[in-house]
């Protein structure tokens, strides 16, 4: 499979085509550069087919076990996961590039922007097809720099602070990744994926960083690398850089939200066997993912800036994806990131057209909304309860039953079922609240849609899981490793269901014009929480204060304690 290396090389070639030449010919050159990128996409599809038939492809430009340059052991390893990611990145990359060729035409630095975009695609491709952890880390760091360059306007002074924050947060995560990598090498003596997994499983190493502190080798390695993943995938509290990139051009947003941010999910999947050895890390991953999903969604609802809203929406989705990894559902996380990537790329690339259309045909919001119902009959409650809460759950359970998905064998599937249920009822309720048509019509239409979507989604997810991890035992092992203690899990699930039903009752009553009397402290807490989430939990202020505090401390060290040393 000699053409493995061509997939990341072709975007580099395209970047050269764009950059080298006179200013007058830059538009034709930009158009020509689409072809290498599209060819890379075709090659990636070919690789996917080849890998599905023949198994993983490994190409190493170094001697395994003793690379001449240990800091840069170049090679490619394409398994099913790598091939899927190659297709995703080249596919979305080609579309975004094609869009950018005309969209950015009037901008200064046109060729430089396109070339940087192409280089970012090339770096992503190298990263997902890395033969070892070291090469993955090399391209991981290059991505940090390209993110800093792409996600901000550097001639715009106010955004420089956000750019600086992006880089420092991502470098902090990179340093944790580096620590994990060094530790992995010190404990197991290799950074080749397969060998690392085998040795980590075979050698139960206990590591003691400080006297009296002992921690399992795989747990510490996986935790440190997870911090690296948290940075790129904007997990709380390392999420700040994503909503801070307000002034990036639309194509960059598309690439950022559809491709680059998935790096964390990919990393966890690539190292799934290592994470499978450490239940503690998986629980931490689950917790961080859940926290990010909840906070991301809460902050999204309270933002008054559309780009920040979209930014927090992506953060919430990344939280879901990481949470799926924490549940041991690694393949589902990849499925999720593909679906989310395609969705977000569409949303962002459509932004320009929507804005253009809105400017052409301004639409004033309607003022003649029908008055809300004053009363809410018992029958309305019951039908509402059935149509928005019970039936979606029934559909989900039926779909699982028909598709023979072992629902109660793993906590992960159960939690995913819960989230699917909560999302479905929220979608139906939201549409019912819009009052575009009579609510029962909306409910029926939504239920039928839900039926189709759930079946298709579950079927596709099941097939995809079987494709990515052909050994069912491996999937089961991950689920088992991620399992929480029974009573804790039951309590969490019961609490979440209770919260969901209460939330539903509150929203449903409000949607039907009913005033819900709440204790004063609840109302006050709600207002406080609203302000808190609207200000993004003041995390950016906290970061700035931390930076200022560090500088103050440095000055104090400089002038007092160590002044004599110059």
């Amino acid at each position, binding site marked *: 499979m000699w053409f493995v290396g061509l997939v990341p090389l072709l975007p580099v070639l395209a970047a050269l085509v764009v950059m080298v030449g006179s200013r007058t010919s830059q538009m034709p050159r930009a158009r020509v550069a689409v072809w290498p990128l599209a060819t890379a996409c075709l090659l990636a599809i070919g690789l996917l087919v080849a890998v599905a038939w023949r198994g993983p492809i490994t190409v190493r430009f170094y001697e395994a076990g003793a690379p*001449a*340059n*240990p*800091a*840069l052991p170049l090679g490619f390893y394409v398994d099913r996961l790598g091939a899927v990611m190659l297709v995703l990145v080249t596919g979305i990359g080609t579309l975004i590039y094609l869009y950018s060729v005309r969209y950015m035409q009037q901008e200064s630095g046109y060729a430089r922007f396109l070339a940087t975009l192409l280089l970012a695609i090339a770096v992503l491709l190298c990263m997902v097809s890395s033969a070892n952890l*070291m090469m993955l880390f*090399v391209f991981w*760091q*290059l991505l940090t*720099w390209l993110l800093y360059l792409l996600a901000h306007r*550097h*001639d*715009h*002074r106010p955004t*420089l602070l956000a*750019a*600086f924050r992006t*880089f*420092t947060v991502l*470098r*902090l995560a990179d*340093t944790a990744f*580096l*620590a994990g990598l*060094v*530790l992995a*090498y*010190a404990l197991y*003596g290799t950074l080749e994926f397969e060998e690392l997994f085998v040795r980590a499983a075979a050698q139960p190493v206990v*590591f003691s*960083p*400080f006297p009296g502190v002992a921690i399992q080798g795989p747990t510490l390695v996986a935790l440190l690398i997870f911090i690296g993943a948290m940075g790129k995938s904007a997990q709380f509290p390392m999420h700040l850089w994503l909503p801070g990139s307000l002034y990036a051009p639309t194509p960059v947003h598309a690439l950022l939200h559809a491709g680059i941010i998935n790096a964390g999910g990919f990393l966890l999947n690539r190292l799934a066997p290592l994470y499978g050895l450490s239940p503690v890390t998986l629980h931490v991953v689950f917790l961080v993912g859940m926290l990010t999903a909840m906070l991301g969604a809460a902050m999204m609802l309270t933002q008054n800036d559309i780009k920040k809203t979209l930014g927090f929406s992506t953060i919430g989705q990344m939280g879901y994806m990481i949470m799926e990894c924490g549940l041991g559902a690694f393949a589902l996380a990849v499925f999720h990131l593909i679906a989310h990537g395609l969705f977000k790329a569409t949303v962002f690339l459509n932004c320009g057209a929507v804005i253009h259309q809105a400017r052409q045909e301004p639409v004033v919001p309607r003022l003649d909304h029908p008055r809300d119902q004053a009363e809410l009959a018992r029958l309305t409650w019951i039908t509402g309860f059935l149509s928005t809460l019970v039936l979606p759950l029934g559909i989900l359970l039926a779909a699982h039953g028909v598709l023979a998905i072992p629902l109660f064998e793993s906590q992960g599937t159960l939690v995913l079922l819960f989230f699917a249920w909560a999302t479905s009822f929220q979608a139906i309720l939201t549409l019912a609240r819009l009052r575009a048509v009579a609510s029962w019509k909306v409910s029926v239409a939504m239920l039928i849609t839900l039926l189709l979507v759930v079946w298709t989604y579950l079927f596709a997810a099941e097939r995809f899981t079987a494709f990515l991890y052909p050994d069912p035992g491996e999937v089961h092992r991950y689920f088992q490793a991620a399992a929480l203690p029974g009573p804790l899990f039951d309590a969490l699930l019961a609490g979440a269901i209770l919260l969901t039903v209460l939330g539903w009752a509150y929203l449903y009553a409000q949607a039907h014009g009913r005033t819900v009397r709440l204790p004063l402290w609840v109302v006050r807490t709600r207002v406080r929480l609203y302000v808190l989430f609207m200000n993004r939990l003041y995390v950016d202020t906290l970061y700035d204060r931390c930076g200022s505090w560090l*500088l103050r401390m*440095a*000055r104090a*060290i*400089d002038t007092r304690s*160590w002044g004599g*040393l*110059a």
Partner: protein
Amino acid sequence: MTVGELSPVWPVAATLGGTILGLAGWVRPRALLAWAVALSLANLIGFVVLAGRSAVPTGLLFLVLAPSVACLSLLGQPAHPDNRAPWLLTLLFLGLGEGILVGRDGPGAGGGTILLGTILSLLGVLIYWYRAPSAASPWRGVGACAVGVVAVLVEWLTTPPTATVARLIASAVLFPLIPLHGGFVASLAGLPGNLPAFLAFLLPALGLHGLLVVLPELSDGMARALEVLGIIGTLYGAVKALLQPRMRMLLAYAGLSFGSILWWYAAAVRTLPAAAVVYVGAVGLAISGLLVAWYAIRARYGDTDLRAIRGLARPMPRFAVLFVLLALAALGLPPFGVYAGFMGLLLAPSLPLSGALLAILLGWLAASWYVLDLTQHLIFGEPRSDLRYRDLRPGEFTALVACVLLLLALGLLPPRLWALGQPT
């Protein structure tokens, strides 16, 4: 004839002769600069020809890099009469430095001791001569150099373990280690012309050369003390670099922080892999490159505060691209030599996994903060409308491109090419 057989007298005599001949062109600065560049190039060619027959402790890398850095630091200079003395001093330091580097026994043996003493004395005199009246650091620099000279004398007159400690002190003055870093900082911050850019590479190279000789003789207590000083130096250098509004001071403290990482490593592991030479060479080269880039700014706007200039990306694109590449190398991003050297150190089988590693990684992380801060202030943002901008001259451009290429080569080539010789 191998390099190992080459007497230290030859490179010293050749460059000293060249320096004296150069005095003939004193009244014609352009001719003098051309002569200095040609002499350093000839020097480089001489060592490249001898490549592959190396038996010197630090390998051939430093012997190849020293004239290269001298050459590129000279290339970045405008042909101005004020710069004549630094050019000739560069040649002098080059000859003396090469004399030490080709010696097998390090600074302590015969000729090496004399040369090391001469370098330290010359450095002290120059720091005193070019001192700024308001600055406090020159006096600490002079003091550190004086300590170094005394250490060289003690080492010459005594036997181990006293001589070992004395060698260590002399090495710590050159390859900065707290609290003897004053000489290094004052050299980079106070000396004129291209000298700081050249010394940013040469002094750590000479220090490492001495350290390699001393390393096998280190007692446990000394090693532990060096470990602690290395960790303190890494963090202290990073903290000081964060606070500097002036480029040269910032880079001097960055050099201290990066250098201290190697001190910690050497003391903790008690041996140095080939990556150590790559690391020291690349850090020196990156700092030299950034100083050469800073001269381009100084030549246009004077020795100003960093915050006085901004937004050079648009009006000076060639400068901006090269400066950013050098900054990337300095903050340790791949595929440059600093990254390769650092990873080579961390992937050594005998690396001790302790809490100290965390401090070292913090020092490493801090570079991302102060180097990016520097880059962002200088390159990005809106350019000032009251300044006239002119992109790099051919000499400056060539120097910076050469520096970036050398850093790339150090990052991409296998470190075993720079294998360390066995000190006797």
